[in-house]
């Protein structure tokens, strides 16, 4: 057993950290957070330097790196700024479906611009009620392809992305089937509507996306439709680990700030870092961050070895999400009044951390999945992804 990062991994971690320090200007972050705007310029720059879509193979202009590398980058980015970090991490949302299950043509066509920071892609999988149960968004089989109708909710960058990977229900034979289809955002009949202002993760605007008789050629279908639930399961496990990386980064960023602040803030004649209560709190925060990190790294490592560990994937969303909330909560408290002010920066981390438990699936879903894994499934389990 070896827990150390290789030299290559340390180099990547360092490079990502330096990029974030240099490029994630706090004022720019504040401005994008207030306007609920995706950091387009930073994303382009990150793409040019090879920090976006890093799991895309080199043959398709990617970096050919693994999920562990991706995890380290996402963590470093979120550590510097939770909002920008999440925005960059989600700028290739859904591309993994193409990389892993797409055909050669699709890979050639869609992947290269993603890795270069030239094209945003997103995934539209959730229905109005935020569930995944047999999609109400349908793809009807027509000559030469499909006709897509319906409405998706919680689509990250639904208005900005050039392509959407859409989960559809297909009603062909007796059994309802599913298909995952790549749709061009500016295709006729595709419309998006902002889901409105939200409390955090504001650099990833969320949209409803409507499909009104959108014609898609057969070439847009990813893999074999009947295998779609399996594809989705794989991708969700991967996204859970990426979410874990965000959580670890946000928590670490909160801890960094709390440490820095408590060393310089003086009360009752001494730096507050000298108070017992603050010291104990910082120690708890540190331990929390390390635990979350271990779980996430192990999940990513197992994934890269080609033997994903379902339990660890699930826990790597569950634990870092809680950790990020707890640590940023404590950090904000250590900051006191300044922590509640926008200029204090920690409040953004606190707001952003909260989404980790809600994003993609509610927190109790991970417990249900983990319970299924360790205690066996119950009679009528809700659809599992």
């Amino acid at each position, binding site marked *: 057993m070896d827990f150390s990062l290789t030299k290559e991994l340390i180099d990547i971690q360092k490079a990502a950290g330096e990029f974030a320090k240099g490029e994630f200007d706090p004022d720019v972050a504040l401005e994008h957070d207030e306007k609920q705007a995706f950091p387009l310029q930073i994303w382009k720059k990150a793409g040019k330097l090879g920090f976006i879509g890093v799991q895309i193979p080199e043959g398709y202009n990617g970096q050919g790196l693994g999920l562990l590398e991706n995890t380290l980058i996402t963590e470093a980015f979120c550590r510097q700024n939770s909002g920008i970090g999440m925005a960059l991490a989600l700028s290739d949302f859904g591309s993994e479906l193409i990389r892993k299950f797409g055909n050669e043509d699709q890979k050639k066509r869609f992947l290269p611009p993603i890795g270069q920071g030239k094209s945003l892609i997103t995934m539209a999988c959730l229905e109005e*009620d*935020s*569930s995944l*149960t047999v999609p109400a968004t349908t793809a009807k089989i027509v000559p030469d392809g499909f006709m897509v109708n319906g409405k998706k909710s*919680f689509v990250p960058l639904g208005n900005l992305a050039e392509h959407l990977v859409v989960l559809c229900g297909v009603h062909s034979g007796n059994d309802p089937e599913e298909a995952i289809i790549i749709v061009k955002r500016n295709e006729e009949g595709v419309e998006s509507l902002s*889901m*409105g*202002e*939200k*409390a*955090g*993760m504001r650099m990833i605007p969320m949209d409803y996306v409507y499909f009104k008789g959108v014609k898609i050629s057969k070439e847009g279908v990813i893999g074999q439709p009947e295998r779609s639930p399996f594809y989705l399961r794989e991708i969700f496990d991967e996204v859970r680990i990426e979410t874990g990386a965000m959580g670890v980064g946000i928590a670490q960023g909160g801890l960094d700030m709390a440490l820095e602040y408590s060393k310089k803030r*003086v*009360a*009752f*004649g001494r730096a507050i870092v000298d108070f017992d*209560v603050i010291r104990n709190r910082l120690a708890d925060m540190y331990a929390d961050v390390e635990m979350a990190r271990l779980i996430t790294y192990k999940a990513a490592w197992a994934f890269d070895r080609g033997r994903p560990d379902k339990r660890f994937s699930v826990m790597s969303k569950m634990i870092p999400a809680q950790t990020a*909330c707890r640590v940023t*909560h404590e950090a*904000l*408290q250590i900051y*006191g*009044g300044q*922590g*509640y*002010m*926008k*200029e204090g920066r920690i*409040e953004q981390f*606190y*707001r952003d951390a*909260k*989404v980790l*438990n*809600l*994003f993609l699936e*509610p*927190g*109790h879903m991970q417990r249900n999945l983990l319970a299924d894994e360790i205690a066996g499934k119950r009679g009528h389990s*809700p659809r599992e992804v």
Partner: protein
Amino acid sequence: MEILRYTEEHTVFRRKARAFFEKEVMPYTDEWEREGVVPRSIWKRMGVEALLCMDVPEAYGGKGLDFLYSVILAEELARTNCTGLAAPLHSDVVVPYITAYASEEPKRRYLPGCVSGDLITAIAMTEPDTGSDLASIRTTAVEDGDHVIINGQKTFISNGLLCDLLILAVKDPAEEILYQNIDLYLVEAGTPGFEKGHKLRKMGWNSQDTAELFFSDCRVPKANRLGMKGGGFIMLMEKLQQERLMCALVAVAGAENMLRWTIQYCEERMESGKPISKYQHNQFKIVEMATEIRLGRTFLDKLIADHMEGKSIVVEVAMAKYWTTEMAIRVADGCMDLHGGYGYYEQYPIARAWRDVRVMSIFAGTNEIMKGIAAKFMGL
């Protein structure tokens, strides 16, 4: 047996306050949140309806009513989810200093305006480098004949931009004995040398005009000092009991509201053909939160009763302020979780409440200070 004995008059007043807020505040809250401040007109409307400073004696334009009216008003205001309209801060935290400690002339000059809503008040203790540690404030008041000359800076001051009258905590540099060097002065807006800074940008309380205040050679008559020379710290200690109690009240009332919206949401929201309130996991979460809120409410009501009897309950109020505000933050978290992804969206009231509630463990004395006070008074 009820802990608090509400009379028929109290109940009538509650109905009146609720109707007023539903008509005059709730429809405008979103707009005020965007504008970052509430309009002066709402203060005046509250004055006209006798909803401000109800405890002020009739001789000064008030109604001389008991503290339960303040409790009712704060609870009903909490239902609006509009934290920016800091009327309880004015009526039950700031103005009581004037009523209790000002000399006759300033009382006659200011109290009627406080009651009518023509004068909005604020209190300024916190400074950029001094939050919890009040004794180390740096704003100074140097004596000069019948006046004092004030220099310094305050921050995080609620009602900071709107305030017409400020209670300002200052230090006398000539006084060397710690805690006896602090005084409170009434400072009118518009006094030369008193400048209001820009509105601070915050995580929540967006319709509250929290601001920085600056004083440079600001001349204030000595007659505007509250109480005896050097009595500032004692007065603060005495009046902070009610401030902390109000804070606990707003926390409990806020948590009650959040849970009420959440239960309604869970009863309406369907998942796999049944309301999500029918799922065991959600039911237990709701029950756990309801239990915490009831515990908080029972403790709080007992303290309100004790406070009205004039008991000294420093330890208990410090405990209540810390525990209820942390409870309200926990409840906000739990309620947002029960809303699923939607709770994160500002169109649901829980999103704003979640942002707003987070400051409560920090303001009115951080919860760390509360625990320190309790420890001290428990003789630890």
